[in-house]
């Protein structure tokens, strides 16, 4: 399982952009809060696709039943 990572960019004007990777679900918000505490004021936050990924893996088995009755 991939370990969580921060991808941080500090612009020449001082603006900090943080991307939290490898932490699906609300866990990523906890990690983003950590950086916010260090830096200061949050201007914007947006989840990405992985935010909505489940924490555990789900396996789905599908069967097609022949309902022709023959």
């Amino acid at each position: 399982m991939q370990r969580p990572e921060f991808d941080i960019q500090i612009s020449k004007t001082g603006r900090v952009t943080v991307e939290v990777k490898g932490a699906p679900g609300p866990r990523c918000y906890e990690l983003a809060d950590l950086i916010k505490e260090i830096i200061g004021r949050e201007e914007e936050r947006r989840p990405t696709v992985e935010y909505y990924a489940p924490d555990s893996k789900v396996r789905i088995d599908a069967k097609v039943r022949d309902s022709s009755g023959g």
Partner: protein
Amino acid sequence: MSAVCILTPIVVASWPVLASAIFGAATSMGFTVRAESLHQEKRRKRQVETDIPNSEVVADALGRGERIVVQRGEVTVEFGRDERGACTVCVTGDQLSERELRKIGEDVAGRVVQQFAYHKLMTELKKRNYTVVEEQVLEDQSVHLRVRL
């Protein structure tokens, strides 16, 4: 990718910490540190004053007299602290317009904030035993860090 946050640094620090960020920023922009103050020069030259946004210099035993002066060509930048505690940036020069001087002041202030944010992040991340696996300065002068938890 889970989430993206955009943050503005709140620059609250003692003067020595802020001075370190100022020296780092000024040096990277080609400024050199001057030992003397500017009082007489200011009266003769064009001058623009601004401050570092969201900044507060925490008062220490030395009081409000701290100043740092850096120079690049005929442009001089003086950093100080005003009555509110904000870090001020005063840009002086004679051959540039007020607009150009203001732009220099804003650029320098931005780089000071960048240095401050970088050092604060590095300190706090190392305290938490996180590993910086990649660090580089990009073409647009932004700093990129990749940190593994």
